[in-house]
């Protein structure tokens, strides 16, 4: 079997929530060994779930992606089952250590000495309080690469602002740039696209720094100011302001380049949005030629032959009228039928897929996209597959979503080579555990 691209690289994952763990997941997928030190005495409220031992009603009431449980049962180890955690912790290893104590910090130092990368995205000040800085890591390993992801960077007036993806996106303009064109911005759902961008670029940055280290032998400190990083996503709006001093605002599902029609239309639905069974189909016509193909595909209705709609300028002027006609066409049809019909005519179209439906999609099945994984306490489920298909070094899910402390033996005995005696004394001191301290709610 071919070696994986990052085989032999070890990453220490001091990450929380989403942006950091996404980066280290991508590195793990490419073959790096990602090791997560976890503290059995401290709960971080947005990484392995809201609480260590949440009341069931809290999970039942929370949005599914935050609170869904295997078989809707509260297990003794809910921290192993938070969907957001599970979605980011395949191909990683977990061991426990209390970094607030000197002997715990000594363990981290020993791990860093045999690692290549330390990745952290905690609130500003958290690492400093523990005494973890680039300089302290460099003492343990001069070649270490450290990545930090402060929300607004480590300098400037906002350096210590707390933020999730949704907040820094608001500051970078996204919340006012997205959403319905006729509703108050509070109609926007909380999203985390900034975590996607920073996570992906974090993995890119690590590999770029490794490339540099291969050439020079030098490690380094990388700072991803997450807000600055997110700006790229709003390129059109930013460049419009830069070039023209034009301040863009929300245009719903319309095309930022003004090609019409472009929208989301109702399809035949087995239920309602209350039961999450409403179906929608998105359609985007980009050229006059595609418009003619679209009209023919839907049976050349009289309205579509209206000369006002023949050019994009005309369609732009009358788009609401056109949208109403299209909705009349799509409303009684299956979303997949509309997709196949329009795609056959060369028009971009697809269902707006509620997540559960992707498991029934024939294309994803044909590409063998899903991966079956068994986590000891959650059982066997189908998981969304990797982001890329590498021909000769395929991404494999060799480690299911990691359980708390699952690799204590591996990390302490094989990586750090601690003696049996030291292992026992660390266990007795409360560093080595497979559960959170019972005092943590």
């Amino acid at each position, binding site marked *: 079997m071919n070696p994986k*691209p990052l085989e032999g690289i070890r990453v220490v994952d001091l990450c929380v929530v989403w942006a950091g763990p996404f980066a280290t997941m991508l590195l793990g997928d*490419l073959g790096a060994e990602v090791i997560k030190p976890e503290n059995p005495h401290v709960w971080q*409220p947005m990484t392995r779930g809201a609480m260590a031992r949440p009341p069931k009603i809290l999970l039942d009431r929370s*949005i599914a992606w935050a609170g*869904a449980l295997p078989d809707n049962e509260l297990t003794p180890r809910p921290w192993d089952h938070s*969907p957001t955690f599970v979605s*980011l912790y395949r191909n990683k290893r977990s061991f426990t250590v209390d970094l607030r104590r000197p002997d715990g910090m000594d363990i981290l130092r020993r791990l860093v000495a045999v690692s290549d990368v330390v990745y952290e995205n905690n609130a500003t000040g958290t690492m400093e309080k523990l005494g973890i800085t680039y300089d302290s890591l460099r003492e343990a390993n001069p070649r270490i690469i450290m990545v930090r992801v402060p929300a607004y*960077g480590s300098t400037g*007036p906002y350096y210590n602002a*707390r933020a999730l993806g949704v907040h*820094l996106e*608001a*500051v970078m303009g996204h*919340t*006012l740039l*997205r959403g319905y064109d006729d509703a108050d911005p509070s*109609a926007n759902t*909380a999203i985390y696209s900034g*975590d*996607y961008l920073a996570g*992906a670029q974090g993995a890119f*940055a690590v590999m*770029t720094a490794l490339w540099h280290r291969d*050439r020079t032998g030098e490690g*380094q400190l990388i700072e991803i*100011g997450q807000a600055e990083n997110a700006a*790229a*996503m709003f*390129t059109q*709006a*930013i*460049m419009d*302001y830069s*070039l*023209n001093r*034009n*301040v863009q605002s929300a245009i719903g599902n319309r095309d930022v*380049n003004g090609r019409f029609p472009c929208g989301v239309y109702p399809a035949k639905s087995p239920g309602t*949005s209350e039961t*999450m069974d409403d179906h*929608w189909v998105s359609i*985007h016509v980009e050229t006059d030629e595609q418009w003619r193909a679209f009209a023919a595909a839907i049976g050349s209705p009289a309205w579509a032959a209206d000369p006002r709609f023949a050019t994009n300028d005309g369609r732009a002027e009358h788009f609401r009228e056109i949208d109403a006609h299209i909705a009349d066409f799509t409303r009684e049809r299956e979303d997949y039928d509309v997709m196949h019909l329009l795609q056959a005519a060369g028009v*971009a*179209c*697809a269902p707006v*897929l*509620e*997540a559960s439906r*992707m*498991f029934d999609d024939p*294309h994803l099945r044909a*590409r063998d996209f899903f991966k079956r994984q068994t986590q000891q306490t959650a059982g066997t*489920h189908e998981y*969304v597959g990797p*982001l*890329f*298909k590498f*021909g*000769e*070094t395929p991404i494999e899910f060799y480690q299911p979503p990691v359980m708390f402390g699952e690799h204590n033996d591996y990390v302490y005995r094989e990586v750090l080579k601690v003696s049996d005696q030291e292992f026992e004394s660390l266990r007795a001191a409360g560093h080595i555990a497979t559960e959170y301290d019972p005092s943590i709610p």
Partner: protein
Amino acid sequence: MQALDNVVVLDLTHHIVGPYATKLMADFGADVIKVEKPGGDIARQLGPFQGNEPNPEKSGLFFYLNCNKRSAVLDLRTAAGREALACLARRADIVVENFAPGTLERLGVGYDFFKTAKPVLPLVSISNFGQTGPYRDYKATELVMYGFAGEMYSMGLTEREPVKMAGTAALLESGAATSVAIMGALFASKRHGIGQHVDVAISETHFGGVDRRHATAIAYQFSGRKTVRVASAAGGLPQGIYPCADGYVDFTNAGLYPERVDDMLDHPDWNQDPRFQDPIQRLDPFVVEEWNAYFLGWMLERTKRDVWAEARRAKLLCGPLFTVEDMFTDDHFRGRGFWTSIDHPDLGRVEMPGRPLLMGKGGWALRRPAPRLGQHTEEVLREAGVADAVIAGVLGKEVAR
């Protein structure tokens, strides 16, 4: 020295996803040779344009995505074009392309062509739905892609249609993901001598993406529960998007930290009501509504910047809703040196977002503006040792500049 300045990228991509991925390479030093078809990258036709006048050398989108690259126009339908491409491939470290699947094979320049030119040369192919499968040839735009593969279904109001992100955010996300695939393929090639074809389906970069989609899928697998479409509307104590004197501010999970909220508000009498402190009563929608009424009064007396300053002091998760103008002119980002600018022969001095991240060594640099169409055709072909006759053939075919 920049980290990637010993890397040559043969870049056959156009539009947004591929060019953003190769932009990251170029910004960290790679020599990105952007091969454009006669007529150029489609992004040259997409705005915003300076002065709102379409002009292939004045697209702000194209400019941002293609700084630091060199442009060579090759017509791959011609023998000269393909021969020049083979020469470029031999001195490249990686090839990236995003033609419709099957296009390169039809032109005779598929993976085998590159493998023959240089066995360890990886080819990263970007497409909407992948190089295989029943939707291989299906079209997608940002809306269609994000609706299908991203977590758009649950965005918006329950009683209305799902609504997407702004602009082409989903494509830029996929571009960032693709930069990871490119670096992975480079490591496999350089460290292990493995050349290969990498299939990047834009759809799969979203199905597996961190912004909720992967978690909604697992939530369903675990429990059968689906993720409802709900807005962030103010949910209390505080949670969600609230109006203030000059706009809006977003709060998350502030209810987990009542003492910090009280600190932010500077301990007003109204907030000391025992019902607002009691964890059970705080769940009562009537109590929340009453609290919100007080809180709205506090908000409406303050600007978004004032509210955020108080929230920062109290260590709450919070962000004001800035316009692009607010952000563009903000002292924080100006002071950090985030913005950058460079001269361009047609656009003049252009200001734009600078480094996406700070590397202590070998980091980001802006070396050259986006290329004019075909500006470097002859230069890069000569560097690659392309025979004079072939260069003449290529330039003869090219639209004269």
